C-alpha cells in the first residue's frame, strides 16, 4: 500500500532521505508539466523540476504537520516558475525567443489520428491563451483532480471564490475554443 505523503515526510525528517524519492516519483509529472507550461521547453522544465524538488526538500523543515503536501509543493513550484520568468527577462541568450511547442517536440507521445491531434492542438492553444492563474486552476482541478479546497489553499481563495473562477475560466476557455474553431474553418 502506498504510504501517505505526510508519513513519508515524517520519515524524511527523521533522516531517511531516500524516502524522498517516493514523493518525487509521485509528483514529478505534475510539476514537470507545470514547468513545461511556464518554460515551453523540455530541458528547462526538467531543470526547473529538479530545482523545485530540491528546494522543497530544503524547506521540509517548515512544512506544517497536517498540511497537504501537493498544494504546498505546487505553490513553491509556481513561485519558482515566476522567479525563473523574471530571471529570463534579464538573460540575454535569446533562448526565450525560440521555444518549440508541445506537439512539435512530443509528437510521438500523442495519438496518431490527425483529427485527434488537431483537437489537442486547439485545446492547448486555447489553454495557452488563458491567463496563467485561470489555466492552472482548470488543469489542477480537472487534470490533477485536486479538490476545490486544495485549490483554495494554493490560490489563497475561499471555496466559493474558487468555484466561481473555475466556472468563469471554463466559459473563457470555451469562448477561445470557438473563436479558434471559427478561424480554422
Amino acid at each position, binding site marked *: 500500500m502506498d504510504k501517505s505523503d505526510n508519513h513519508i515526510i515524517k520519515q524524511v525528517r527523521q533522516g531517511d532521505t531516500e524516502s524522498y524519492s517516493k514523493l518525487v516519483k509521485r509528483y*514529478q509529472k505534475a510539476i514537470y508539466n507545470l514547468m513545461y507550461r511556464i518554460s515551453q521547453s523540455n530541458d528547462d522544465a526538467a531543470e526547473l523540476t*529538479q530545482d523545485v524538488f530540491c528546494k522543497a526538500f530544503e524547506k521540509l523543515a517548515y512544512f506544517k504537520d497536517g498540511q497537504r503536501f501537493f498544494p504546498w509543493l505546487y505553490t513553491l513550484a509556481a513561485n519558482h516558475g515566476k522567479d525563473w520568468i523574471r530571471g529570463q527577462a*534579464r538573460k540575454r*541568450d*535569446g533562448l526565450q525567443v*525560440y521555444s518549440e511547442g508541445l506537439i512539435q517536440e512530443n509528437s510521438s507521445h500523442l495519438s496518431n489520428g490527425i483529427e485527434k491531434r488537431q*483537437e489537442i492542438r486547439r*485545446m492547448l492553444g486555447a489553454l495557452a491563451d488563458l491567463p496563467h492563474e485561470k489555466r492552472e486552476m482548470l*488543469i489542477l482541478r480537472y*487534470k490533477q483532480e485536486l479538490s476545490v479546497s486544495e485549490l483554495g489553499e494554493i490560490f489563497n481563495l475561499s471555496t466559493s471564490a474558487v468555484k466561481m473562477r473555475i466556472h468563469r475560466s471554463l466559459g473563457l476557455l470555451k469562448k477561445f475554443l470557438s473563436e479558434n474553431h471559427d478561424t480554422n474553418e
Partner: protein
Amino acid sequence: MNESDTEKLINRLQQLPELEPPPDLINKVMKRIKPDRKPFWQKFLNRLGKPCHITFKPLQLAGTTVFAAALFSLGMLTGINRVQQVSVDQPAQITAIENILQDPKSSFLAGRELMTGGLEAEALPFLQSASSSSPNNPEYAYWEGLCYQANGMPARERSSYIRGINASPDTIPLLLNLGHNFLEQKQLSNALAQYSKVLSLAPDEQTALYNKGLVYTLKNDSLNEITAWKTYLHYYRSGKKSLRAVRRLNNLKDFTYRIYQLGNEKIILHQAALIKMQPTERLRQEVEIVANRLRHNPKLQLDIVYFHKNDAYAARKNALLLKRNIAAVIGKNETKRIRLSWFGEKEIIQISSGEYRLPESLLLFGTRNYTNPNKSEI
C-alpha cells in the same frame, strides 16, 4: 454554457496528454539532495587544517567603502522618501550621494553593486553619471547599457554599447550585447552582423554561436541555420542549448548529429562520422565518447543498431566495425555488454513535420541492467 457543454469541455481537459518527465529526474534530484555525510566536527577540523590567506586590495577596499557609503545614503534617502519627500533636513546624505556622483569610479562601483542587488532603477543615475564623466570608458558604457536594458530602454541601451564600441571596437561583451539588443528588437541582419564580429574575434563564443543559429531560424534561412547549428555543435556537445541545436537540426532533416539516450544520460554524437566509419580523428572522438560511458558505468548495456537502405550487409559491417573500435578503447572483455543489430532498410523517425525515413542511420541506446556473468553475487 449549458451543462452538457461544460461536461464535454471538462472531459476534453481530462483527456489532454501530459508530458512524461525525463527518466533520470528522480536520480538527479536524489543526487543533489544527498547530505554531506561528514560530521560537522570533521568539516570544522578540515577547515582549520587548511591554510588560509587574506588578500588586501586597496582599490577593492576603497570601492567597497564607497559602495557601503552609497548604499547607506541611498537607504536613508529611500527611507525618507517613503515617509515624506526628501527634505533639506538630510543634507549629509545628499552630500554623500553628490560626492559619489562626482567621482566616476565611485559612481560606477555604486551603480554596479546596486545592479547586482537587483536595484536597477536606483543604479541608473550612478551609471549614467560615470558614463557621462568618462564617455570613452568601454566598461562604463557596457554597464550603463546593461542597466538601460534592465530598465526596459532598448534604444538608450543600444547607444551606450555603440559609444563603447566606438571607443574600443574589439570589446566582445559590448559587441555581444549589441547583438542581443538587435535580436530582441527583431533587427535580425544587424544582430547577425554583431554576432559575426564577435565570432571573428572569438570563434568559440558560445552565445554568439547559438544566437547566430537562432537568427537564421527567425529569418527562415534553413541552409545557413544548418551550418550555424553544426558550428555550435562542433564546439559544444553538452547542455540544453546543444540538445536544442540538435533537435532543430534534425527537424530541418539534417542528421549529422543525433541525440542518444545511454542509461540516464543523453549524449550527442556525430552520426555522420559513425556511418562513414572512416578512420579519422572525428571517428576516434565519437568512439571515445561512447567508450567512456561504458567505462564509467559498468552496468550499462549498449545496443548498436545500424540501418542501411537495401543493404543489410553494409549495416552489419558498420555495426561490427563500431564494436571493434569501442573494444579497442575499453578492452575485449567489456564488449560482452554490446549487442548488435542491423537492418537492410530505412529507419523511421519522428520529426516536427511528421514521419521521416533515414536511408542510412545509427541508433544507439543503453540500458542500465547489465550483470557481469563472471561476478557472482554474494
